[in-house]
Each structure stands twice: as C-alpha cells, then as structure tokens.
C-alpha cells in the first residue's frame, strides 16, 4: 500500500490550495481584455480605493518594486506596451479576502487598442504544405531533418498514401488549480507551492523577477495532479511580487476558469503525412507539422523537433523527411501535458499505418511487425535503437486480438496502435540518503505528485538495492535551500534518473560502512524498528559505525548524483533546428474494441488492453495504476477533450461542464500487461512508466472505428459529429 494513502483518505495532506499563513492576503489577476492589442491605459484607481485592497501592481510598478526593475525582458511579468493573448495578466491585486481581490481585479479598467490577432494556424498559411515552407514572422521555430533518397522512394512506389490530420488542444484538468503562498522573510523570498519541480520554480521566478537565485526559497506542497502543467512556474512570480508590494504573505490560486485559460494546455496542430509503399514495404515517408505554439512555446525548436520525432513512428523506413513549424498565435502559452504531444503524433502516425494497411490489403499487425524497430536498428535521425519491447508487445496484442475475436464479448471493431517513448534520464538530479537508527531517509525537494514515482518508486529502488522492507525507508521533503538539486517530477524520469542518484547514494553509504567495519561488504537489516548493519553474518548497531559527530547528528548522510546523457543523433541528417535524442526506447501497444452508433456517430469503447514495455517493473501494482490512469486520459483525448478556440483568442469551453473529461461510467474494462526483458536507462533496467501508457490510446480507438465502419476520422477528438461526417451521415 502507498504510504501516503492513509493520510489522503482522511483529508490530512496539505496541498497548494490549502496553504495559509498568519496575516495572509489573497491575490487576483487582472486579465487582458483582447487577444492582441496595444495597452493604452490601465486605470486601477477604483480598485486601489476599495476597502481591503492592500496592493495593486501593474507593469509600470515593477521598476519600483524589484531590485533590478525586473529580470529577463523577454519574460517580463506584466506587459506595459502590448498584450499577446486574451486573459494575459496585466496587473495583480492583493486584498484581505479572495472576494475583495476578485472584485478589485474586475474594477480595473484596461484600455487597449486592438491589433489583428492570429487565431488559426491554417489561416496564416492557406497554401501549406506547398513546396516552399511558410515564411512569416509568425513562425517561431523551424526544424528539418532528412535521411535517404526520398524522391527515388516515391518515384518507384507502387502505392502512395497521402493524408492530412488535425488534432485539438487538450487541457490539463489537474483537479487542484495552480496555487501558492509567497512571502518575504528576513530578506529571503519564500514560496510554498504545488509544483512538480521546486528548483525550476526557483530559477524561473528568480529569472523573471531579476532576483538572486540564492534568495528565492521554494518548498513544494502536496500536489493535486501535475501532468506537466505544474512543471514550471505560473502563479509564483505574481504572488511574490504582491508579497513584495504588500509586505504580507500572499496566497494566489487560479480559479478553475483561469486554469483553462492560463493553465498551459496543449494547442492544435495540422500534420501532412505521405508514405510510399513497394512490395509491402514502406520505402519513404515525409512528415510536415504545423504546430500552434500560442503566445509562447517553451524551448521552441526543441518542442517542435521533439514532437516530430514521434511522427515517423517506431518503424524501419529507408527514406524519411521530417519538417516542422511552430507558429505563434494569440492564444495562451503552450504547455506540456502527459507525454506532450506524443499521443497526438501517434494518432496521426498510427492512423496512417492503418490507412496504408487497408489500401495495401495487409493486416495492420503484419504491417507493423514487418517494420517495427529491433534492437540495433537506426532511427531516422541516426540513433541506434537499444533494447525495445515493441515486437514482443505487438505479438502479445495480436494473440489478444485473436482471443477477443473468438470470445464474442464485444460487438465493435478492434484497433491496434503502437507508441514509443524514452525515459527522461537526460535531466539530472541528486539525492541525499541518511543512514539513521530508524532507517534510511531519502532527502528530496519534490513532493510525491500522485504517480507514486517518489513515494513508491524511489523507495522500491532502495528496497531492491538493500533488501530492506518498505517500513525501513522514508522520504523526507525539504525546501530548495536544504534539498539536493533535482530537475523535477516530469518526463517519466523520477525513478529513472533520481532513482539512480538514490541507488548510488545507498551503495556508497554501504561501502562507507563496510570500510569502517573493515569488511569487504555489509548487508543492512531492519529489526525492532531499527536499522542494523550485518558484517560477516554478525549483526551490529549502526551507531557503532558512526563517528562522534554523526552520532550527535543522528545519521550518516551520503550524496549520490545522476547526470545522464541522451543518445546521439547523426548530425548529417539534421538540416535545421533541434531534435530530441532518446535515452532509451519504451514501447506501448494498445488494443481497443469500440462500437460505433451508425445514426449518431457516437463511439463507445468496449474494452482496452495495453502491453507496456517497462524494462523491469520495480512495483508492478504502481505500473498498473499508471497504465490505467494513462488509458483513461487517452480515452478523453480520443473522444471528448477539445479546447474550443473561436475568434480573437476566445475559449468557448473554459469549464468542466463544457470541456468533458472521462467520468467513471465512460471507462470500459481495462487489461494491463507488463512486458519485461528489454532493459532501459533506469535503475535495474527500469523504464519510465508515467507517460507511455497514454500514447497509443487515441490511435487505437480511431483504428477500432475504422475497423468497425471502414471510415477513418482524421481529426481528434472523435466526436459524434466528426464520426458522422466520416460515415457520410452529415
């Protein structure tokens, strides 16, 4: 059982939303009234005069409030000249109560002169994809890679399949809105916040406000859902500016509406994908991506190149060209959401595979198995594929399909889809492990965010290294002033990267104890609630091996670090921009059965099975719960979830009643199968499991619809209207 569960079922853990301090004020954001415009005037006189209002800060006040007048001008907190998305905060307010803060924010008059807004990426480039790439100041990133003789492949093809796919934006919908508490204490800037990455919040906040990083102290609270939306700063710099202006602690929490408007959703994309086929073999593929970056795309080139890698698919193809453009629009900044954009890419690439299979008269499994990467193959960007369980997962899924066909339980079509991913061990981190009388303490800056990667994953690594029971190991959370550095809980990296730092610290600590005991090696034991050191079969107290200083301190503290490297790309294949090099290769295969209502176009999933290559499952039950969660989220992406951007940066459905995520009754029976034996980059060969489960789900559902109806829907999500159009009912 998870050690955080007993407190959580009693409502006894403190999330960012729950934070409170004596004398605390509440903050509120003043939104830009247009998607794109020149700021003429911000009149806050009414708000300033309201009873209970303690601070009003506009962009013009930052020079006065911040030591250097602010930080990086590119990331200016509050604009003074131009707003670039609707609801962009243009002023912030702190007041005695949340209601007063909100009322005061509503009383601020923001006068703007509207400028033309860019809403739709396809309207910007009506002729795309033409021979020439779009040239426009709106293009913020361009990546291009090429390998092989593409022209020859297409010229000699027996069959060419050309398709265009569209995907919609997906909102985070962590149930807890972004929330933090900021204060100024003894010259330090203190932030307690619901975050996946305390050190990223620290560096972001220092950079945006122009503060010394060493003065900014971030402490993570418990997190009510992350999924990528809480992997960088959002509310924290605003709250801190208000704390500086008011001299009081300030709580700032987004409303759920703001969560939709500002909370880092993904945005729409259009993909053109063409493949050439000769004698049942895919000989060439050209992929062109137009990605809506909103007002800002974090790591512009990187995010685009990273996404496009997934569009080639985990397949051997002789000639491949990948080209992507990120386009700035007047929507809020783009965000990362569980396996950012990979589920959308897999929807495109795997729908395309089924289209090829259908046109060529090949079984979808046979086409995939004939092309699936094996260990030792080379990716289109020239990277060597490591141990990869895709074929094994596909073979098992194939047997499952035969079993489903035979058992007659479902009435719908059956679709398969593949996904691949990589454990984010390229992002580094450090751990301190304390060897104390009451057990081992993992000292950590990041709270468990829900996946179990910290509270179970790191503990499971220690269990496997030492043989100790879980009761002998605990995680102690510290703020960024006393915790060792770590990149954060994201990218399916926690066990893979931080787990290696923990493993090294534990092994080093055991080595230290062995040296002190003058034996080649020691074992650890846990008995009577106490940690013992076993040397040559002889059990001795930990205390007997500690120095007087360590005895006074109560423990021996040992550090471990892991700064990993990603794989290498073949530079000759990269023509422009930055692409992602994988650290390892994780495969996920989803089999889905779904029935289609021939009158309404409604799709009803009947059952889902997923086959996940995890390297080694350090805790199979935790892997299973990640798979179940990822599948359900993927069903939302597949069927209902869509941010509806209308004109001039307006979002038509910023709430849970209009933006529908799956509910209990929407989830069909789920079967999860763990595939082991293909070691990854993590401890003991573990691969990250937080993100891969979602990736093939939308594609598998779309392929089930294709199997059921013969009609392919080329746009996510598969709403009844889109399915009905594909069925020519509309």
């Amino acid at each position, binding site marked *: 059982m998870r050690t955080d569960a007993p407190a*959580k*079922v009693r409502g006894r853990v403190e999330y960012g939303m729950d934070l409170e301090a004596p004398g605390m004020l509440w903050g509120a954001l003043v939104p830009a009234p247009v998607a794109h415009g020149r700021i003429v005037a911000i009149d806050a006189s009414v708000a300033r005069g309201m009873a209970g209002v303690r601070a009003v800060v506009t962009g013009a006040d930052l020079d006065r409030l911040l030591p250097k007048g602010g930080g990086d001008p590119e990331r200016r907190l509050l604009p003074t000249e131009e707003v670039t998305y609707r609801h962009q905060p243009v002023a912030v307010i702190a007041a005695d109560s949340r209601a007063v803060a909100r009322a005061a924010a509503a009383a601020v008059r923001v006068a703007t002169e509207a400028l033309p807004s860019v809403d739709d990426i396809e309207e910007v480039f009506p002729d795309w994809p033409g021979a020439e790439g779009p040239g426009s100041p709106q293009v913020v990133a361009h990546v291009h890679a090429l390998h092989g003789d593409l022209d020859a492949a297409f010229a000699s093809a027996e069959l060419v399949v050309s398709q265009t796919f569209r995907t919609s934006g997906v909102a985070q919908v962590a149930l807890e809105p972004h929330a933090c508490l900021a204060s100024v204490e003894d010259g330090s800037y203190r932030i307690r916040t619901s975050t996946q990455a305390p050190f990223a919040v620290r560096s972001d906040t220092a950079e945006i406000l122009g503060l010394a990083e060493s003065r900014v102290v971030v402490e993570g609270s418990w997190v009510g859902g992350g999924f990528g939306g809480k992997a960088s700063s959002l509310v924290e710099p605003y709250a801190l500016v208000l704390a500086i202006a008011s001299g009081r602690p300030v709580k700032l929490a987004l409303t759920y509406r703001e969560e939709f408007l500002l909370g880092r959703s993904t945005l729409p994309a259009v993909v053109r994908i063409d493949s050439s086929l000769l004698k049942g073999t895919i000989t060439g593929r050209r992929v062109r991506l137009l990605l809506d970056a909103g007002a800002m795309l974090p790591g512009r080139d990187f995010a685009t190149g990273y996404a496009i890698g997934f569009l080639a698919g985990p397949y051997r193809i002789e000639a491949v060209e990948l080209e992507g453009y990120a386009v700035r629009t007047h929507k809020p900044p783009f965000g990362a959401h569980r396996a950012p954009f990979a589920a959308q890419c897999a929807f495109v690439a795997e729908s395309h595979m089924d289209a090829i299979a259908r046109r060529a008269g090949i079984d979808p499994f046979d086409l995939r198995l004939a092309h699936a990467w094996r260990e030792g193959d080379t990716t289109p960007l020239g990277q060597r594929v490591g141990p990869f369980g895709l074929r094994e997962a596909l073979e098992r899924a194939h047997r499952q399909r035969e079993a489903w066909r035979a058992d007659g339980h479902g009435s719908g079509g059956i679709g398969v889809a593949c996904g691949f991913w990589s454990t984010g061990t390229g992002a580094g981190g450090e751990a301190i492990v304390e060897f104390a009388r009451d057990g081992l303490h993992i000292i950590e800056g990041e709270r468990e965010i829900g996946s179990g990667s910290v509270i179970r994953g790191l503990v499971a690594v220690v269990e496997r290294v030492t043989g100790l029971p879980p009761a002998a190991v605990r995680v102690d959370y510290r703020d960024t002033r006393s915790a060792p550095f770590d990149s954060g809980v994201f990218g399916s990296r926690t066990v893979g990267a931080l787990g290696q730092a923990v493993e090294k610290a534990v092994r080093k600590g055991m080595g230290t104890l062995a040296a002190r005991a003058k034996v080649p090696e020691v074992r650890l034991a846990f008995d009577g609630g106490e940690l013992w050191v076993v040397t040559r079969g002889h059990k001795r107290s930990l205390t007997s091996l500690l120095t007087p200083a360590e005895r006074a301190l109560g423990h021996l503290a040992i550090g471990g670090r892991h700064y990993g490297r990603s794989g290498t790309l073949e530079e000759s294949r990269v023509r422009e921009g930055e692409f992602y090099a994988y650290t390892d290769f994780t495969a996920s295969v989803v089999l889905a059965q779904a029935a289609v209502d021939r009158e309404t176009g409604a799709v009803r999933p009947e059952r889902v099975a997923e086959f996940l290559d995890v390297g080694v499952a350090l805790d199979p039950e935790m892997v299973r719960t990640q798979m179940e969660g990822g599948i*359900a989220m993927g069903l939302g992406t597949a069927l209902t979830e869509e941010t509806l951007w209308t004109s001039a940066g307006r979002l038509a459905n910023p709430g849970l009643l209009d933006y529908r995520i799956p509910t209990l009754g929407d989830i069909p029976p789920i079967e999860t199968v763990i595939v082991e034996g293909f070691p990854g980059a993590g401890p003991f060969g573990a691969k990250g499991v937080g993100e891969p489960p979602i990736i093939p789900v939308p594609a598998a559902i779309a392929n089930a619809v294709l199997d059921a109806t013969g009609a392919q829907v080329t746009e996510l999500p598969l709403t009844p209207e889109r399915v009905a159009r594909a069925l020519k009912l509309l």
Partner: protein
Amino acid sequence: MTGGEGTGNAALALTVNGRRRRIRAPDAERLLDTLRWRLGLKGTKEGCRSGGCGACTVLVDGRSTLSCLTLTHEVAGATVTTVEGIGRDPVGRRVQAAFARENAVQCGYCTPGFVVALTGLLRERGPKLPPERLLEDLGGNLCRCTGYAAIRRATEAVCREVG
C-alpha cells in the same frame, strides 16, 4: 482571511463532525469556504467551485452535497460530515480503508469527495444496492489520475464487505 462572499455577518449554528459550531458568516458565503477557511477543515477540497468535479462533496444531514454550490446560511442548523469526520462511521472507515488498500488514491485531491460521496450513498441507499448503480451515482466525481479502475475495485470491495 476567508474567501467569503456577500455582505452581512449573521450568526448561525452547524453540527460539524459531531461538534456544535456557532459561527458568523456573510450571506453569500459558500459552505466550502466556511468549512475550509472558517473552521479549518481543509480536507474538503476546492476544485472547480462550480459543481463540475465533486471534490468538495460533504454530507449534509446524511445526504451527499456539493459544498461549493451550497450557501452556509442555507444549511443553518444542519449536521455536516466532512472527510475528517467520515471515519467515525463504520461504513466510512471501510470506504477509507478500501481506497487506501486498492490504490484508488494517487494525487489524492479527488479522494475526500469520493470517500464522502460513496459513504453517503451506501448509508442512504443501503448495502443491497448493486455496485453498478453506486458507480453510476459516482459519475459526478471526477478523477484525473486513476482512470477510475482502482476506484471501481475499491467500491466493489466495500459493497462485498458491507453487503
């Protein structure tokens, strides 16, 4: 200090988790804010604040109620049970144990709402209710982490235990 809304500051009494509480609150204050910020019972979670997620579910006179859509003055005199008090009820305790045991808890933000709602349903409708009906009635509680599979297992386990 509170997130309270409205004007006035009239007195009222509530019985919360077995304890009689006398408070003053503005006329438009939501029960959610009274519980969290006036009484310090922050186990009841604030999610969407508009009835769309179920995270704020409490029992009012035994009935499952969204505290974000309930004005405190509207339920003056009532008996309120939150997640902090649900464990005094033997059914509530079983629900909590099953959610923990079955790993129906990940980030835990929806958990108090689920635990309270399921306890209320089992209390209100009796243990003979088929689990499928219970699960249908939990459709107003959202979870973004678990995919509901473990929540389903926990619910079925509780039904077996109390049935």
